[in-house]
C-alpha cells in the first residue's frame, strides 16, 4: 500500500486518510486493518462481493457509524477515532445512497436545494438552476420523485449531494438500480461531471464494469480488508493475490513448472513473457491464464476440445479441454464458429506471467 508521508497543506496532502481501521457489528469484525488514501480530485472505488464490508467503510467515513480503532482523517484533521466522532453534518461530505433517498415531499428543485446554506433566494436559484442544467434535469425541476424514472432519480440524487460543494462525495452502489445501457452512459457522464467539478469521490460497487468505467483507482475488498489498491489495468493484468485474480475478470489457473532455464512451462507449452511480481517458491505453482491469452490459430499444432461456448456478440468465449485434462478459456472473434466436441487449434500468447 502506498502511504506517502506528505507535508501538511501541500497539494499532495491526501484529502482522505484511513489508517488501521477496525469496525465491528455485534461480535463480527466487518472492517479489519483497513488502509485507504484518496487525493484531491481522485475518484476511488471499493470493489468487492456483498458482505465484504465496503458499505461499512463508506458509512464510517460519512460518520454514520463509529469505528472500533484506527483513525480517519479529512484534510489532515482527525474526524473519527476511538473517543472522537465528528457528526456527519460537520464533515462536509456528500452521500448518494443506494436507493437515492430522495425526499418524496419535495420537488426536484427543492431536493437539490436542500443542502444549500444560503438564505439568499437569488443565489439559490442560480446555483441550483445551473447544476440542474448541467445534469440535464432543468426541464423536470418541478416534478416530484415518484414521477421520475430511475435514471432521472439517480441524477437528482447526485445533483443534490453535489450542490453544497462537498469536499468528498461518497456513492453507495450508485448504478445498481439501473439497466445496463443506462448504467454505461451514466457512468461516463457522471465521471465527466465529477472531473469537471474537481470533486473527490469514493464509490463502492460489486460491479466490475462500473468500477472500471468510473474510477481512477480501485481497491478490491475482501472480508473487511483492501487486498489490492491499484489502477484497473493493474488489477486485471497484475493481480497480487488469488482473491483479486479470482474476482477481477475471467480466467483459469493452470499448473506450472519453472524449468532449468528459468522459463515457465505449462500444458500450453513454454511461455515467453515477463513474470509479474515475485516468483513463488515451492512445487505447486500456478499461472493465471486469461481468455485473451489463448489465441485461436488454425495452423497451430496444439489443439483442444470445445466443451462449452458462450456467445458474446463480438466474440465467443470458448471453454476448451486440454489433453492433460485442464480447462482454459479462449476469447475468439465470433465468426469462428466451432461446435461443441470439435477440436480447434490454439496458441498461448501471454505477456504478463502472473504466478501464484
Amino acid at each position, binding site marked *: 500500500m502506498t502511504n506517502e508521508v506528505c507535508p501538511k497543506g501541500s497539494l499532495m496532502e491526501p484529502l482522505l486518510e484511513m489508517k488501521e481501521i477496525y469496525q465491528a*457489528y455485534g461480535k463480527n469484525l466487518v472492517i479489519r486493518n483497513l488502509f485507504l488514501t484518496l487525493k484531491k480530485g481522485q475518484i476511488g472505488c471499493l470493489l468487492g462481493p456483498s458482505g465484504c464490508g465496503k*458499505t461499512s467503510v463508506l*458509512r464510517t467515513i*460519512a*460518520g*454514520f*457509524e463509529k469505528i472500533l480503532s484506527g483513525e480517519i482523517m479529512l484534510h489532515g484533521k482527525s474526524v473519527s477515532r476511538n473517543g472522537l466522532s465528528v*457528526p*456527519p*453534518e460537520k464533515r*462536509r*461530505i*456528500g*452521500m448518494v*445512497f*443506494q*436507493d*437515492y*433517498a*430522495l*425526499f*418524496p*415531499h419535495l420537488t426536484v428543485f427543492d431536493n437539490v436545494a*436542500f*443542502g444549500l*446554506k444560503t438564505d439568499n433566494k437569488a443565489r439559490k436559484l442560480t446555483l441550483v438552476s445551473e447544476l440542474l442544467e448541467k445534469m440535464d434535469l432543468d426541464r423536470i425541476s418541478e*416534478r*416530484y420523485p*415518484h*414521477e*421520475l*424514472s430511475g435514471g432521472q432519480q439517480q441524477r437528482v440524487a447526485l445533483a*443534490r*449531494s453535489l450542490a*453544497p460543494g462537498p469536499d468528498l462525495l461518497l456513492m453507495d452502489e450508485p448504478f445498481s438500480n439501473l439497466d445496463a445501457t443506462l448504467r454505461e452512459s451514466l457512468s461516463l457522464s457522471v465521471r465527466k461531471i465529477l472531473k469537471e467539478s474537481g470533486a473527490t469521490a469514493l464509490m463502492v460497487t460489486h460491479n466490475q464494469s462500473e468500477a472500471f468505467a468510473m474510477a481512477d483507482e480501485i481497491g478490491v475488498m475482501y472480508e473487511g480488508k483492501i487486498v489490492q489498491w491499484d489502477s484497473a489495468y493493474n488489477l486485471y493484468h497484475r493481480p497480487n493475490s488469488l482473491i483479486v485474480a479470482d474476482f477481477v475478470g475471467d480466467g483459469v489457473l493452470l499448473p506450472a513448472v519453472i524449468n532449468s532455464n528459468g522459463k515457465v512451462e505449462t500444458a500450453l507449452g513454454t511461455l515467453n513473457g515477463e513474470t509479474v511480481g515475485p516468483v513463488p517458491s515451492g512445487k505447486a505453482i500456478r499461472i493465471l491464464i486469461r481468455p485473451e491469452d489463448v489465441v485461436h490459430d488454425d495452423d497451430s499444432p496444439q489443439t483442444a476440445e470445445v466443451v462449452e461456448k458462450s456467445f458474446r456478440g463480438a466474440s465467443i468465449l470458448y471453454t476448451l479441454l486440454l489433453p492433460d485434462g485442464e480447462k482454459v478459456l479462449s476469447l475468439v472473434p465470433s465468426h469462428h464458429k466451432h461446435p461443441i466436441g470439435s477440436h480447434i487449434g490454439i496458441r498461448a500468447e501471454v505477456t504478463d506471467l502472473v504466478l501464484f
Partner: protein
Amino acid sequence: MIIRRLGSNLLPARPSAWRLFAALFAAAVMIPLSIILLSFTKPAGDVWRHLSQTLLTDLIINTLKLAIGVGTVTAILGVSLAWLTAVCEFPGRKFFTWSLFLPLAFPTYVLAFVFLGMLDYSSPLQILLRQHSLPTLSGFRSSWGVIFVMSLSLYPYVYLLARDAFSTQGKRALEAAQSLGHTKTEGFFKVALPMARPWIAGGLMLVLMEVLADFGAVSIFNYDTFTTAIYKAWFGFFSLAAAAQLSSILVVFALIILGIENSLRSRMQFTSMGRDAFRKERLHLGGAMKVFAVSYAFLILFVSFVVPVIQLILWTTASFRYEFSSRYFDFLGHSLVLGIITAAIICLLALILSYAGRHHPDILSSILTRICTMGYALPGTVLAIGIFIPVAAADGFLADAAGALLNVEPGPVLQGTIFVMVAAYIVRFMAPGFNSIDSSMRRITRSIDESARTLGSKGLPMLYRIHLPILKGGLFSAAALVFVDVMKEMPITLMTRPFGWDTLAVKIFELTSEGEWERAALPALTLILVGIIPVALLTRQADD
C-alpha cells in the same frame, strides 16, 4: 412519466363477484345512514328550534375544543413516542415499544371514571391533600379533564401509525439530511416529520372519529357534545326527528374526516423514500437524552395505564365480595362471543371489500369503501337508531309473509336476536378491520400476482397459497382490533341486546350511571385484562 402506482390492472374490467358483494354491503350500510339523513328533512320544528337556539353553539364549540385539544395532545404524544421507539435506542426500548400500546385495552369511559374518581374534589387523594394544606388540582371536571382522559386513551392510534412511518424511513431521512449538512434535529423537523405526515394524519383521523363518537366518557364528565345532545333529544324530548337531525350533522363531519383520511392513505403510496437497505442500526441516545427518553416513556405508561389499573384493583378488592357473582362469567362469556363473531365476519367482509378495490381500482371502489367504513365515526346511539327501524320493518314484513303463507303468528324474527347487535357492530367497526387488511393487501404487488399466474396459480387457490400467508399479519391485526373494540362497545349493546345478553361493558355503564364507581371497577378490570391479550399480541407482532 412513470407513476409507480399499484393501479393499472391486467385483470378483467367487467364487474366481478367481489364488486357485487361490496356493492351489496355498501347498500346495506347505506340503509341506516339514509334513514338518519332523511330524518333531517322531517320537520322537528319545536324541538329543533329549541336545540339550535340554546345548545347548538355550545355543542359545536365543545366538539371543536375536544377535537383540537385531543388532536394536539395525541399528535405530540404519539409522534414523540413513535420516534423514540422506532428509531432510537435507549434502555427499556423493547419493553416500551409494545407496552405503550396497552391503553388501547382501556375503554375511554373507564379511564374517565377512574381519573374522576382519583382527581375530583371529593376523591381520597384530594381530601388528603386538603387535609395537609397541600396544593390541590382543581377544575379537573371540565374540558381539560376530558381532553386529558381522551388523549391518554387515544394516543396509541397516532403512535401506531407514526411508528409505521418512522420505522421504515425515519433513520434514512435523518441520514440524508445529515449528509446535506443538517443536524439531526433539523433533519427530524425538515424531513422525517413531513414525510410521515400521511401516517400521522391517518392516526389523527382515527382519533377524531373516536372523539366524535364518544358517549360514555363525556356522559361521566357531564360534558355536552353532539352525542349527549342526540341522546337527550331522542330519550328526553322523545323526538327521533331532532335526534336524527343532530345525527346527520355528525354524519357530515364524519364524511369530511373520512374523505381526508382516504386521500391521505393513497398519498402514502407515493411518499415512500425506499426502505433502509442497510442493516438497521438505531440512533443511540446520549446521556441526558437517554434519561429523558426513559423517564418520558415511563411517565406516559404510568399515567395512562399503570395508575388506572392500580386504582381499579384497589376498588375491586374493596367491592369484590358484594359485587361478584356467577353472572360475571356470563357477562364475560357474552363479551367474548360477540367479539369473536364480529371479528370473524368483519375480516371476511373486509377481505371482500379489499379484493373488490384491488380488482377495480377506480372511483366507484373508493366510494364504496368510504361508505362501508363510515360507521366508525358515528356514535353507537345513532347507528342503533338507524338499524332498529329497518330491522323492525323487515321483521314486520317477514311476520306478515309468514302469517299469510303459513298461517302462523311468529314473534319477531330478527329483533330479539343478536343479529341486530352484530349488524350494528359490523357497520360501526368495519373501518379498523378494513384498514389493517387493506394495508396488507397493498403489499401484495402486481408482480407477485403475475408470477403466481405464470406458475399456474390463480383465482381462489392463489388466494389461499399466496395471498393469505401475506395477509396473515393484516388479518390478525384486524381481528384483534375489532375484538377489542366490540368488547369495549357500550351504547349499541345497551340499546339492542336481547334477553340475558348483558356484557361487561353494559354492566360497567349501569354501575357508573348510578355513581357506583367502586363496583364498576370489577367488570372494568375484567374487560381490560381480557383486552390486553389481543393488544399485546398485536403489538408484539409489530415489534422490530
